[in-house]
């Protein structure tokens, strides 16, 4: 086997997250991009590939490249929902391995929180949506609720087990000064919060925030000159199973069952090697289904996997260490924030805060979910 030209994440940054009415999707991405490049010691002239996902322009990569003054020779506008950015990292690593690009900039920005007051009339449902939308399923929460009810029915799992995911996320958020919600919550708080779409309560659901992020991926020839400890892209896998939840083959098995093993095989590691997990938590059920589909536990056993604080601070399998989409931030497509947090943990950025830093972290699994459990993209990252 010929050695691969290796790729690593060398810079990460968020823009302001939370409520940012003074920012646009473009200024958010500009701020995050500048900060992520600066951290690496790179500038716009170093970037020869741009990766963007969003629905704010008919061609977001073109709009953003012009706004930033970039003229990249490689563009990727892959949009598979919240897992787009894990896919972008995989695509960037493949392009680096092939020698096509040297430095990739991956960005995301959203003003969904500030936009909320503008209640625009929805256009009629066309194409495949005409068999989905007229029935009034609240989206996306209703789709995840359908999966949750099926999961509870099939395995005798409980709302308490779903709630544990939110409780652990909040415990991590308490350690993150940038998290949107930091006050502790209990399982009862989750179960007592308003019902949105049965069986999911308000606190089973992710936040609705503004925000943006950027990730810089560079070829190994550049690492020596850079200002950060490179975090190597060791493996990647992606897939899709459906678009509408009505067409999901099995509501308890996600595409992670394919993307996860692909990424692990490429990285040449087993689950026992992992030091931390960053698992897309759009809803509490998303995490339970993903853990099982990835094979981290058996079907029906994810509730036990997350019980007793096992994934919370101090637990044996730290997960969603920034507070996640449930408590830190969730500007529509959360996947870029999983990569940012995993990178910081593997660089040991939080050494001055031992509760927040996963001690000696060397290997992380990052898993994005997009649409309504529709797309899955897994990345294995390692401290080189």
């Amino acid at each position, binding site marked *: 086997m010929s050695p691969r030209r290796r790729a690593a994440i060398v810079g990460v940054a968020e823009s302001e997250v939370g409520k940012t009415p003074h920012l646009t999707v473009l200024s958010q991405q500009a701020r995050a991009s500048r900060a992520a490049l600066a951290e690496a010691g790179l500038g716009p002239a170093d970037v020869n590939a741009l990766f963007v996902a969003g629905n704010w322009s008919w061609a977001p990569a073109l709009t953003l490249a012009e706004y930033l003054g970039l003229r990249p020779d490689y563009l990727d506008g892959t949009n598979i929902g919240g897992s787009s950015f894990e896919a972008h990292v995989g695509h960037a690593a493949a392009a680096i391995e092939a020698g096509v690009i040297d430095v990739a900039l991956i960005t995301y920005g959203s003003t969904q929180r500030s936009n909320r007051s503008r209640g625009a009339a*929805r256009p*009629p*449902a*066309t*194409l*495949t*949506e*005409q*068999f*989905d*939308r*007229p*029935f*009034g*399923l*609240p*989206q996306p*929460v*209703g789709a995840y*609720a*359908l*999966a*949750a*009810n*099926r999961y509870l*029915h099939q395995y005798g799992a409980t709302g308490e087990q779903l709630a544990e995911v939110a409780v652990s996320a909040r415990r991590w958020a308490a350690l993150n000064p940038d998290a949107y919600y930091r006050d502790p919550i209990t399982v009862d708080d989750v179960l007592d919060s*308003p*019902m*949105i*779409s*049965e*069986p*999911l309560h308000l606190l089973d659901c992710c936040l609705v925030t503004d925000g943006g992020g950027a990730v810089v991926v560079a070829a190994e020839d550049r690492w020596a000159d850079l200002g950060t400890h490179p975090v190597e892209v060791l493996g990647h896998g992606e897939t899709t199973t459906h678009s*509408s*939840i*009505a*067409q999901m083959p099995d*509501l308890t098995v996600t595409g992670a069952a394919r993307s996860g093993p692909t990424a692990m095989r490429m990285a040449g590691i087993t689950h026992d090697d992992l030091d931390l997990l960053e698992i897309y938590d759009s809803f509490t059920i998303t995490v339970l289904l993903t853990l099982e589909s990835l094979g981290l536990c058996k079907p029906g056993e994810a509730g036990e996997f997350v019980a007793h604080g096992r994934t919370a601070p101090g637990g044996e399998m730290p997960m969603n260490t920034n507070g996640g989409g449930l408590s830190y931030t969730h500007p529509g497509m959360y996947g870029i924030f999983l990569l940012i947090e995993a990178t910081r943990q593997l660089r040991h950025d939080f050494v001055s805060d031992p509760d927040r830093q996963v001690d000696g972290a060397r290997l992380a699994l990052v898993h994005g979910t997009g649409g309504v459990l529709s797309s899955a993209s897994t990345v294995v990252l390692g401290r080189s």
Partner: protein
Amino acid sequence: MADLASDAETQPFWDGIAAGELRLQRCRDCARAVFYPRALCPHCFGDRLDWFTSPGTGTVYSYTVAHRAFSPSAGTPPYTVALIDLDEGVRMMSRIVGGGRVRIGDRVELEITRLGGEGSPTLPCFRVRETA
């Protein structure tokens, strides 16, 4: 139909609903039923699809009771949206009408109705026939 826009490919389905029938496609090559309507069989890629009328019986695969409004034509929450496994082997999103508690595994039958009153689309919904 305020909330949905049919097209040349799906018009036979909606014409069927207007006539009180649930019309599905079946692939002439692999004999499997296909829903939603399309030009190619998603099972075998065959392009010879025939329409037939389903008796409209099936089983609840999953459901949720929505407590938040989604669109005015969808009616006033709480209401039950369900995934129905039709006996022909296809799954569709729908609504459970007629009241009562729904369970996964319930047997259901077609009831074509409007969800949002006059002017809202006529939709293939289901009512519980036999509780699991």
